[in-house]
């Protein structure tokens, strides 16, 4: 099997970045990218970050959502890591990788001299164990790897070389290795109970190599972590990070204004963000993110299997009222499946407008008998509930009977995976897990993602063909038009209601500096920060 340097095989990650990775390989040094290496050394202080989602576990392979990303990002390291905005894929535990010509074999070269928090060296065996663990535990990032990596197929070639043997070619595999968080296999094996892959242990304890060491964890309070001075990039800027679970929006806002917290997540009504912006002691950072808000439409159930009905739905949502009034103009309309700032998003896609007359026009062309449509929102995510209500309002005006159903995420995610149980419509976000149009177009529209990300159960052979081609094409310039075409077709098909692309808001106290926002991880990587 021929392997080539990454210089030749540019995955879907932006050519320049990989060239850098290749360059790093060329220097053969154990140091990462220059601007990563310039970490602030030995700073003091402590940051208290108020988080709206509860940390119910410290297992890096058990969660995948952005709400609980902090412990994964700060206490564990992945093979590669996405940093900054627009996101760049940087070598992390791996100093370089190569991909075979057929796109099925990826070989990662690990950094030398990386140790876990307990002093044990991090080797290729740990990477293999972590990969197997993800596949065995079947949580968190499992859906990302399950179709590509078979259990037992990952090999440790030597102490610092790992080889992934994929079942199908993938131009984006390296982009997803951010989520292969490497755990201390020796420690976990010592603490394994009844073949649980150490789940009981790691759920509450530290077993990583990341910038911070978990010192205290309490599901009701959050976690407290202390700087790991022997991190391979050098010690982080702040000595202690304290992530508190603060459920109530008002507590987060008020705590930040008072100075009890130095930062908080931005998942709150825009009205509260405005309140934070007005405070002189706060610095509400803003960045264009890539997080798509949309509504799934169950394409395979009547009457939604009729394109006219789906178009009627798309015309029944009050986009302007939503974006300008409810969200106070804080987001941007996104007419297609790929977020606007991402390459592969067509710049001139008209999309749909709020137009009850058009909705009625399309509705008149629907053959199937009318019935009550179930519109679902997610409990705990008020925006999704509000959007569902807003759509219901439009549906009523268009003459479509509907019923709202709000259920918690665990229930929702289960139903999404079953076409029988899936709601007629469901409002949710698609965050960035890897910065590639495939993260949206591929995961949300390909038929092989039925029972996975494609909860609309959308099926179009042409779209599948284009996506397959894009996945087998290494060159970004050639891939971009393919994704643009997918976006156009899916918009014409009214595959889902594409609504807006989110902006990121980072509310911090003014004494916090160095925040590096990246859509993957939502700016919660703390090692870059310093505090005065």
């Amino acid at each position, binding site marked *: 099997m021929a392997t080539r340097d990454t210089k030749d095989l540019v995955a879907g990650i932006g050519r320049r970045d990989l060239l850098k990775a290749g360059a790093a390989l060329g220097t053969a040094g154990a140091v990462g990218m220059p601007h990563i290496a310039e970490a602030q050394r030995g700073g003091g202080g402590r940051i*208290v970050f108020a988080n709206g989602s*509860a940390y*119910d*576990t410290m297992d890096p392979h*058990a969660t995948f959502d952005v709400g609980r990303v902090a412990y994964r990002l700060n206490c564990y390291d992945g093979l590669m890591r996405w940093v900054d905005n627009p996101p760049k894929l940087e070598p992390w535990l791996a100093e370089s990788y190569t991909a075979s010509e057929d796109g099925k074999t990826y070989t990662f070269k690990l950094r030398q001299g990386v140790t876990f928090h307990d002093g044990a060296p991090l080797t290729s065996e740990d990477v293999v164990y972590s990969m197997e663990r993800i596949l065995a535990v079947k949580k968190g990032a499992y859906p990302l790897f399950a179709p590509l990596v078979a259990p037992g197929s990952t090999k440790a070639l030597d102490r610092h070389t790992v080889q992934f043997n994929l079942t199908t070619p993938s131009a984006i595999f390296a982009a997803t290795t951010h989520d292969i968080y490497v755990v201390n296999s020796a420690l976990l094996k010592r603490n394994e109970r009844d073949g649980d892959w150490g*789940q009981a242990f790691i*759920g509450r304890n530290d077993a990583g190599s990341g910038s911070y060491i978990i010192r*205290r964890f*309490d*599901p*009701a*309070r959050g976690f*407290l972590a202390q700087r790991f001075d022997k991190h391979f990039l050098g010690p982080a800027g702040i000595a202690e990070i*304290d992530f508190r679970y*603060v*459920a*109530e929006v*008002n*507590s987060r806002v*008020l*705590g930040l204004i*008072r100075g*009890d917290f130095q930062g908080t997540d931005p998942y709150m009504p825009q009205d509260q963000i405005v309140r934070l912006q007005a405070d002189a002691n706060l610095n509400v950072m803003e960045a264009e993110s890539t997080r798509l808000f949309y509504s799934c439409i169950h394409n395979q159930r009547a009457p939604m299997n009729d394109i006219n009905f789906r178009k009627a739905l798309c015309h029944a949502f009050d986009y302007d009222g939503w974006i300008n009034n409810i969200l106070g103009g804080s987001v941007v309309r996104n007419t297609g499946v790929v977020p606007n700032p991402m390459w592969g998003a067509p710049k001139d896609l008209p999309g749909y407008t709020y137009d009850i007359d058009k909705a009625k026009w399309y509705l008149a062309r629907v053959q199937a008998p009318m019935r009550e449509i179930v519109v679902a929102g997610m*409990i*705990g995510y008020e925006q999704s509930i509000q959007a569902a209500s807003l759509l219901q309002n439009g549906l009523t005006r268009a003459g479509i009977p509907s019923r709202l159903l709000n*259920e*918690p995420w*665990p*229930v929702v*995610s*289960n139903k999404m995976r079953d076409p029988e149980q899936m709601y007629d419509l469901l409002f949710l976000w698609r965050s960035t897990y890897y910065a590639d149009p495939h993260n949206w177009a591929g995961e949300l529209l390909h038929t092989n993602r039925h029972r996975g990300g494609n909860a609309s159960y959308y099926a179009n052979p042409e779209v599948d063909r284009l996506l397959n081609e894009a996945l087998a094409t290494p060159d970004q310039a050639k891939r971009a038009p393919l994704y643009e075409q997918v976006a156009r077709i899916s918009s014409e098909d009214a595959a889902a209601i594409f609504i807006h692309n989110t902006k990121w808001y980072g509310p911090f106290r003014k004494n916090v500096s160095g925040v590096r926002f990246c859509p993957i991880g939502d700016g919660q990587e703390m090692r870059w920060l310093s505090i005065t």
Partner: protein
Amino acid sequence: MVWFVPTLLGLLAIVFFISHVIPADPAAFAAGENASAATIAEMRQRLGLDQPLHIQFLRYVQSIFTGDMGRSIYTGRPVSEDLLSRLPATLELTLVTVVVATLVGVPLGVVAALKRNSWIDHALRLVTIAGLAIASFWFAILLQLFFSMQLGITPLTGRVEGWGPEPITGFYVIDSLINWDMETLLDAFHHMVLPVATLALPAAATIVRFTRAGVLNALESSYVLYETAMGYPRWQIVWKYVLRNALIGTVTQIGLIFGILLAGAVVVEAVFDWPGLGLFAVNSILNSDYNAVMGFTLVAGTMFIVVNLVVDILQGLIDPRETR
């Protein structure tokens, strides 16, 4: 007292009925929302749901008595462990509230009785009825709005700023005393002000009403009338006989008060983000964490039954005449 065990079994039966009989498919419920068909089938067998109901019930009772309430679907930990770790927070809040409500309620009740039909009595009647008519979650939010958001003199939520003392007993007041950490102690009390005020309102209202009734009863009793006729000073009679009897009456109502507090704790903890049993229950509801909700019901019910048992015993000790 004889009925303690049957009542407990009855409680188990109710929870068993809710969790095993009402749902269309209890196995799917128990396996959690994310479960696959295979997991559900496995769960059905493991839970013995293919067995007749009475066998199921016996097994259920057996598992509860060995402390097994199943695993929380959301946290993945045993429900009993989660509940136990949150018990001290709720108990601390409840006990402080009982003390505060008693200190406020008993004197007011005595005053209302002694000044029967005066404007004070009428005002107190109105206030106590209002105290029982106000939705505690709404009252809590109003307190937050005014004292935390407008004036900024009380913490909005939480039990203590930061991580709190290393848990020894789990009671922050006791733990910070053990560590002689006055700052934390004050902070803990500071955080208690609003939740305790919210919880104490209906509790104090109830105590006022009972104390008033108790004092009136005592005042009209034959021995007080006799003592009065004998010419003892009124304050002495009130102090010696009436108060004592009224207090006994109040003690007997602590079981009832405790029920009010336990029910109140569910919403008050939710509003104040108080990491106790109530907040755990509310989060479990939001997450459709079925085992956790049932575990909470069981524990809350048991606590209530135990407190009433203790009150019965106490009552027997204080006042042997009234032994039931």
